[in-house]
């Protein structure tokens, strides 16, 4: 919750990073590895292709802290292709947002709305994008994405490879893979907020394995030019829980 502390830390890291960068530039650069090598190391660090392929469903339970006292319990359930259900609980009130891979719906008592409503297309599409449990880097060629090495950058004091990932849909993301651990430590994307394109930085840390696959347990989401961070603490990861398709379908209510 100490955001000023975090900012100071980031500034200190940035200063150290600038110094390191100056030294790096002054020495001959070693040959950069290929995209295929970077991605292969990343896949191996996550637990390997075999383990990743065994992921059929996923449930993550945690808490999100959005500053100004905003805090919620979050349960995120994913069942590819395209199925996702996110439950937020604040002070005993639980809202549900879900998609079956084609359409999205919600019941959100926080918005004083107890009825089932459709999610806007852009929200549904963003949700569906998140259902690739493996992540877009795994098997990117077969998925129709393109990946290019866009240089090296320092993220929170870590030297990283910056990969430009152009999804099949045309959306562009930048993925930062730690040179030493091969973990993905940051992803930059662009999201429409109130009609304005905002660069969103998502940083991942506190990685731990569940079912042989690595998952970040701390996720920070920040928008460019804004000091507030939404912080997600993942308390529990369940690999391959039983999730029925019906969970993701828009409920049909009996006619009154």
């Amino acid at each position, binding site marked *: 919750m100490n955001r000023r502390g975090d900012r100071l830390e980031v500034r200190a890291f940035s200063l150290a990073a600038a110094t390191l960068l100056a030294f790096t530039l002054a020495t001959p650069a070693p040959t950069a590895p290929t995209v295929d090598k970077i991605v292969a190391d990343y896949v191996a660090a996550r637990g390997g292709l075999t383990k990743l392929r065994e992921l059929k469903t996923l449930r993550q339970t945690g808490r999100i802290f959005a500053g*100004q006292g905003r805090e919620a*319990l979050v349960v995120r359930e994913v069942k590819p292709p395209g199925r996702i259900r996110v439950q937020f609980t604040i002070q*005993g009130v*639980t809202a549900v947002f879900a998609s079956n891979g084609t359409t999205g719906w919600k019941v959100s008592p926080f918005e004083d709305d107890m009825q089932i409503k459709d999610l806007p297309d852009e929200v549904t599409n963003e949700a569906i994008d998140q259902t690739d449990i493996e992540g877009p880097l795994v098997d990117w060629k077969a998925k129709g994405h393109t990946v290019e090495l866009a240089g090296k950058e320092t993220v929170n004091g870590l030297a990283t490879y910056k990969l430009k990932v152009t999804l099949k849909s045309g959306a562009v993301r930048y993925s930062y893979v730690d040179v030493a651990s091969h973990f993905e430590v940051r992803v930059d994307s662009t999201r429409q907020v109130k009609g*304005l394109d905002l660069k969103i930085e998502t940083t991942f840390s506190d990685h731990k394995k569940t079912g042989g696959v690595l998952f970040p347990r701390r996720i920070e989401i920040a928008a460019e030019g804004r000091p507030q961070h939404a912080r997600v603490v993942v308390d529990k990861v369940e690999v391959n829980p039983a999730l029925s398709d019906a969970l993701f379908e828009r409920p049909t209510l009996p006619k009154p």
Partner: protein
Amino acid sequence: MRKLPFLLFLAPAALFADVVYLQGAGTISGKIVEQNAEIVQVDVGGGIVGVPMSRVDRIVKARCPLDDYEDRAAKLAANDTAGWLKLAEWASQNGLPMNAHDAYEKALTSSPDNAEARQALGYTKLNGRWLTEDEAYQASGYVKYSGEWMTPAQAQIEQTHSAQEKARKDAEYAAVAAENRADEAEAKAEEAEKEAKKAQEAQQYGYPGYGYGYYGGYAYGVTSWPTGTGPGLGAGSRPSGGGRR
């Protein structure tokens, strides 16, 4: 001892709170403070949430985190800083942020400089002073725009974008209004033409001029009269004209 069976019978009801399941998805858990055919009111520990009964699927008695919080809080002494901190973290982990906030506040009462409680409540220590989240952002040069803290440069971008959006919407509105005015003028012209024709016909066939006015008055009266009692009108029908309601 003779009272024991009665107490045991009462115990489950006293221990369990209520979970209101909404139709389709979503729940509200807490203590029902009022329930009638129209609405159920649930005290969720940070306020009352009203749910229309038409949206309720079912209500079940179940022990909920709020019950545990209240039990644990009742056992803590006011000056038990460690106890309140532990309870606050537990409340946060169990989806009770308002109770967590209260528990951190209680910890601060006995230990005003407690860093864990201060940080959990959003305070930042600057030059030996605890500042609220807003004060800290302000002190760091951020500005609040549209309810969010941001850099002055970002606020400028958003302000310009809002102004452009407003100008675009105003222009759209003006265009629609102009189109409506043109339609209105056209309709008026048509009306005037009809009136002139009718006047000409009345003059030609000897109709009194007030007949047309009377017809209009009658029509409004009929439109506003049958508020759910007239033939073919349901209870929800609303009068569309002036007059009696």
